[in-house]
């Protein structure tokens, strides 16, 4: 009655683990690539956004 034996009967069960790892690696890789290569001016512009909205006297 070991649980894992039943799971092994699911056809292609290893797919679930593999998919998860692949998905993660892909998304993470793409994000990293984008984050590193993104345009410096745009990044700086967005970075300043919270400080760019003051209307009230401080």
């Amino acid at each position, binding site marked *: *009655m*070991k*649980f*894992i*034996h*039943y*799971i092994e*009967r*699911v056809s292609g*069960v290893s797919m*679930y*683990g593999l*998919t*998860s790892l692949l*998905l*993660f690696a892909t*998304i*993470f890789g793409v*994000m*990293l690539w*984008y*984050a*590193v*290569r*993104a*345009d410096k001016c*745009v*990044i*700086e*512009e*967005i*970075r*300043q*956004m*919270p*400080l760019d*909205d003051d*209307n*009230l*006297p401080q």
Partner: protein
Amino acid sequence: MQADKFYYDNRIVKWFAYAVLFWAIVGMLAGLWAAIALYYPAINLGLPPTTFGRMRPVHTNAVIFAFVGNGIFMGVYYSLQRLCKARMFSDTLGKIHFWGWQLIILTGAITLWAGKTSGKEYAELEWPIDIAIAVVWIIFGINLFGTLVRRRERHIYVAIWFYIATWVTVAMLHIVNSVELPVTMWKSYSWYAGVQDALVQWWYGHNAVAFFLTTPYLGLMYYFLPKAANRPIYSYRLSIIHFWALIFIYIWAGPHHLLYTALPDWAQSLGVVFSIMLIAPSWGGMLNGLFTLRGAWDKVREEPVLKFLVVAITCYGMATFEGPMLSLKNVNAISHFTDWTIAHVHIGALGWNGFLTFGILYWLIPRMWNTPLYSRKLAGTHFWIGTIGIVLYAVPLYWAGFTQSMMWKSFSDEGQLKFQFLETVTHILPMYIARSIGGALYLTGALIMVYNLRKTIAKGNFIANEAAEAPALVAAPAPASRQYWHRWIERRPMQMLVFSLIVVALGGLIELIPTFLVKSNIPTISSVKPYTPLELQGRDIYVREGCYLCHSQMVRPFRDEVARYGEYSKAGEFVYDHPFQWGSKRTGPDLARIGGKYPDSWHYNHMLDPTSMSPGSIMPSYVWLFDHELDTAVTYKKIRAMQALGVPYPDGYAGQANKDLVEQERAIKASLKGDKISTGQNKEIVALIAYLQRIGKDIKAAPREQTAGAQDGRAVLGN
């Protein structure tokens, strides 16, 4: 270019801020009450609503959904308008959102006190409230996305990504976990049973922490920290990686709440791997927050707002380091079911959520009322009382958790368990007292804040509509050759919504599908039968009184647990459990093998006065079960509902269920009579005894090969 003139809506922010202050005090008071009940059970005054089993869900719901929930909305409604350079999409939707949410909280508190609960942690609210939550959440979503569509700012700042991910994921989690079959107006059964229910519940439960207590607050951090420190976030690139890695990894980590349980091994391993990976984005976010203050630490010494934010971010770092550690199986074997978990979550709740909210309130209210804070000194006092409160709360509980676990696992030289369960409880009571002092200090700090902000409000002038101007957003220029797809997505809220949903839904689906799709995933045990009508009624009383908040029903395959409770739990034992009742904390002993362990009279006396059977017990007395009549009018509906969920009662059984119920009741009353106890007709206590005497017994009737641990290759683990 002509600039548009418009006004930010501060009134909705003010309402949510008032709600935060109000529910903070209510939620903390309920928590303090529950904490005291653990060493002084008589604090319930003999009333059902004030027992630990009902106060605890009131506390958790009030803190999570009322205090933090309103905190999210307060921060989002303030920051979103400014980051979009636009007023909220609709003032009316904002009002409906606000009052709808408060009504949900109020109804939630009343029903929980009344014992109306679906019995799933952090999702206790019954089906009509679940529907109301979904409706109000959608209204919030329309307002959120409507504002984004009308924005005057081309880019969407990272804080808003966190808000979008929060909205979409909470919607998904809430809907999937709340699928339940209504029986009456305030009673429903979870659609899922046993292992599946547990997996869905902790997929939800863990991600409620992730997407209700973490991602929206990270969004707030990315907005309010730069504001308060008056400098941009340390690294915007890091925040991009932080966001995507966090939402993607978090969604997988749920099964770490079910290590060593009857959950499939592969799902447990998946949960562990992703939990460990979570350290990276979490610490990336924490460092991004702390590095923002580089060169500004002199300001932190002066400014109470920054003090609160720094401790909040530090606590975030501590909790997100500890979380992955707790999900390691060898650490979890010690920590699970103990106060260690409670200490861990309170570093998050008191430190991260609490202090971040306080910091934002101290920053926000003087600005919206256009006046300096009434007293910076009082804010400093609040900071120190609160910080000492957190330490005094957490340290004793870490100690208690570790000590108790070690005591559970101690064997004498003769190979006998060294301590009775009760001894391990009475041993840590001083730690419980210290914890409640820590909690009381934290509450005192919050009261000081309420006073301070009240005074600030009194001397200021509220700016309901704050004037602003910004040029209208014109169509984006033709894409340049180096136009990255991410820039395309980060400018478009709807694409962002869809992409976030895909990312989180994929994680959820891959995790859940195998357990659902294949029947053989839950090995059935032929001797496990549906509950009798009386037992089913008793089980509902067990759920109503929140017994699962102190008693687990899950014997893990450890030497000490098998020696203490009996054979370890199998997945097939829970196939008729709607909802599952595995629990997550053992303030009392596990009950998975309680059936048949004691005579009926023991349970009768124990529920009437727990100390009569277990001297020193901290369980409250459940006197009302001896007076309340069992509602047999709903037996028919309950059996029908169970049949609809696939529980194999014979056709037409619902009609004769009450006959069987009366018969079983008569048998239990006869057995009680044998011990010189006479009880009235149709009392709730008899149904509860029937259920308790059934738990974990079916498996004992099974042939050896179906249940024996040795033959399935899964040996009982040593400590």
